[in-house]
């Protein structure tokens, strides 16, 4: 951090919050709130005189509350910039009767009680999100007594107690009597790998090796200490990790496979007793320990939602930010020009964070050095003459690539070509048909539908398949030589969100027995959330089919991923039977009803047009 702070071409803004982000790749406008720190950081020499006279003492957050700090303080010894900061919530204020002592002793006169937050506007080309994570609070696990017993601590607190810069200067003592413990237990997976509503279902990745490291530190500092680790699985999967684990075992640390039950404290000795089944022997064991460390898991930042909304990012079910592709684009966010690094994406250790950060920096520099970006020629385009300023396109765009229209000013929406990814949700939703998707135009789609249903339409299954998942799923079925009926005819769209209602109606009008729309599963939509609009549109169409007296089952929706060739073949086989079950009368009835419906709509439109024309002449 010191190096970053000193670098001539890096501007480090600490104690600042991002207020808003607008724009798109290469042209982001970011507003940053530089919070008032009430001390001029460029003048402060960190002489600590102010802190000495400050009468307020509050628990030190950095030391996990084990020691206290003043209202004017240095957050931690290596803080960058190396300048004091005044917490106004703790400060007594500058009223001379109340206090004002720090300003009196400051030789540099750099304390300003009237400091204000400052809004800074910056323009950047790319953004790397590295907002980190938080640790899990084990209060929920009441059986371990974290809130009741002083000698039950978390691994974060352990870190402060064993650190040379910690409140005890590295002397490891237990909180109740400030004595070095002789026996210590570690309980693993507190808040991780848990599906019962307490904690999180995922593995937190770092806690196993953190505990192994902790036991080695203890054995190194206090030879002869008896350390026991209660675990269900030790996941030592990285380079050199297994060696470290074995070294810990060689040092005499006991690894006991079993998750303990209730922890009970002896009120006289303040020692803790826990019962555990040693699952390797199948016996119940009781262990008396002087101290217990809960190996807490990690959770996403609880205030991360604001960043997520600002950058239109989505999260996975565990709350961490979703990457663009789990294997091929692990550091890219789905929104172009935004990259991820570190624990904001998933729990990871220092090495993995550094790796990801380096990758993100390299990915970012590709864009920055080129100075321009290539956009695939499949973006959307708007015909401003047809637009009636309803603003639906801006609402459905998952990338915020469409600037909303202004009805009063008759300002049509603007599509930012650099930000558009080409899903086509806007074109499908536009009630005026004012949006054209390049290379997936309405005319092209209609022509494909007509060609498929030209000969013997009742024998063909018309399928809309999205480029990334379902079309690739079909490929997968093909390369795996899976057998499925030959009746299906695929129309490729970039996203299932492109499938306009009118395509489906057109297909039914031309005598299609069944229409299948298929796309990516909800969680792996390649266009952030465009697939949700598919679902909404399908619901609408099923309703309409029902109202018109047509079986809604004739319009099918299936989520098929690129790896689900098996499912693709299975769905095709299933639908083949359904295609055969559709009778000629049914198809004729559908064609008739839909033709009537279309004629009615046309007449209505004509009438409206005539009326408008009459108004103009009048």
């Amino acid at each position, binding site marked *: 951090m010191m190096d970053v702070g000193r670098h001539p071409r890096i501007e480090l803004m600490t104690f600042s919050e991002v207020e808003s982000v607008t724009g798109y790749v290469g042209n982001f406008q970011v507003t940053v709130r530089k919070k008032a720190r009430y001390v001029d950081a460029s003048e402060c020499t960190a002489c600590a005189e102010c802190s000495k006279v400050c009468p307020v003492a509050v628990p030190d957050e950095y030391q996990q509350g084990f020691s206290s700090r003043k209202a004017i303080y240095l957050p931690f010894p290596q803080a960058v910039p190396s300048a004091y900061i005044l917490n106004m919530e703790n400060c007594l204020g500058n009223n001379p009767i109340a206090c004002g002592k720090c300003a009196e002793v400051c030789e540099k006169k750099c304390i300003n009680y009237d400091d204000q937050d400052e809004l800074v506007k910056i323009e950047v080309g790319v953004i790397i999100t590295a907002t980190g994570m938080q640790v899990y609070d084990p209060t929920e696990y009441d*059986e371990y007594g974290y809130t009741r017993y002083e000698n039950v601590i978390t691994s974060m607190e352990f870190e402060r107690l064993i650190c040379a810069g910690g409140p005890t200067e590295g002397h490891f003592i237990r909180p109740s009597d400030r004595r070095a413990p002789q026996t210590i237990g570690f309980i693993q997976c507190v808040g991780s*790998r848990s*599906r019962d509503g307490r*904690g999180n279902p995922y593995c937190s990745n770092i806690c196993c090796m953190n505990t192994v490291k902790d036991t080695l530190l203890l054995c190194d500092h206090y030879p002869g200490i008896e350390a026991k680790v209660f675990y269900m699985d030790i996941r030592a999967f990285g380079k050199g990790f297994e060696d470290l684990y074995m070294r810990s075992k060689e040092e005499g640390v006991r690894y006991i496979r*079993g*998750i*303990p*039950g*209730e922890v009970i404290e002896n009120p006289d000795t303040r020692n803790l007793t826990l019962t555990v089944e040693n*699952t390797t022997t199948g016996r119940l064991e009781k262990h008396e320990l002087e101290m217990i460390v809960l190996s807490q898991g990690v959770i996403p930042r609880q205030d991360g939602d604001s960043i997520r909304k600002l950058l239109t990012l989505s999260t996975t079910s565990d709350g961490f930010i979703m990457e663009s592709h789990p294997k091929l684009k692990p550091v890219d966010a789905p929104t172009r020009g935004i990259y991820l690094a570190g624990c904001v994406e998933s729990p990871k250790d220092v090495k993995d964070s550094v790796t990801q950060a380096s990758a993100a920096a390299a990915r970012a520099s590709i864009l920055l050095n080129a100075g321009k970006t290539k956009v695939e020629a499949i973006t959307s385009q708007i015909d401003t003459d047809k637009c009636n300023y309803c603003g639906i396109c801006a609402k459905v765009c998952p990338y915020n690539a469409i600037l909303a229209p202004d009805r009063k000013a008759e300002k049509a929406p603007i599509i930012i070509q650099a930000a558009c990814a080409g899903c086509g949700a806007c074109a499908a939703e536009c009630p005026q048909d004012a949006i054209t998707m390049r290379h997936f135009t309405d005319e092209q789609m209609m022509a494909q539908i007509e060609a498929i249903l030209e000969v013997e339409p009742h024998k063909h299954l018309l399928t809309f398949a999205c480029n990334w998942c379902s079309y690739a799923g079909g490929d997968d079925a093909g390369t795996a030589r899976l057998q499925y009926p030959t009746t299906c005819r695929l129309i490729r769209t970039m996203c299932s969100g492109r499938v306009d209602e009118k395509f489906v109606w057109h297909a039914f009008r031309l005598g299609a027995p069944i229409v299948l729309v298929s796309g990516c599963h909800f969680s792996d939509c390649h266009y952030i959330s465009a697939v949700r609009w598919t679902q909404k549109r399908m619901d609408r169409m099923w309703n309409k089919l029902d109202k018109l007296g047509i079986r809604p089952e004739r319009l099918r929706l299936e989520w098929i991923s690129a790896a689900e060739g098996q499912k693709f073949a299975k769905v095709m086989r299933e639908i083949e039977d359904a295609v055969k079950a559709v009778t000629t009368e049914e198809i004729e009835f559908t064609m008739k009803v839909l033709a009537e419906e279309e004629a009615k709509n046309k007449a209505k439109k004509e009438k409206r047009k005539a009326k408008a024309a009459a108004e103009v002449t009048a």
Partner: protein
Amino acid sequence: MSDNTKVQETEKHQVNFAFREKLNSIAEGFRHNYCYQCGACVADCPAAYYSESFNPRLILLKAILGFEDELVRPDSEIWDCTNCYTCSERCPQDVRPVDVIIALKNLCVKEGKAPPLVRTISDTVLDSGITTKVTSLTERRRQELGLPPVKSYPVEDLKTMLEGD
């Protein structure tokens, strides 16, 4: 050990998929198959504390492997469970060992493999609505203590309710 008995041994310890399916259908689906044998259910189990043979973790393991012969029998260890639900509270995987054990107990009763005592108790409940028989001794002691006689319960209603299942 002859080769013959060896083969029998392995057959006995082969995974019985049919029994697994059967148990899945009565024990609220697939949930208990998520058990990763961490032993959290054993540490605070009062039955395991007093009986060395009782171990909810091993019962779950046997259930997952489908060891029907060892679980569904009158002297099976499942009958030591006190239904206190501590294991369900501790389990990180939401396996609910008690529910599996109750399902196994029901299976035992259905197949007539429950211990005789269970039959006696359930008969008493059907006859009188309570689990313990009221004897003349009970009545006498109650009279001595100045307590009213044990009131009778609407057993017919109870029977109607139970028939519904």
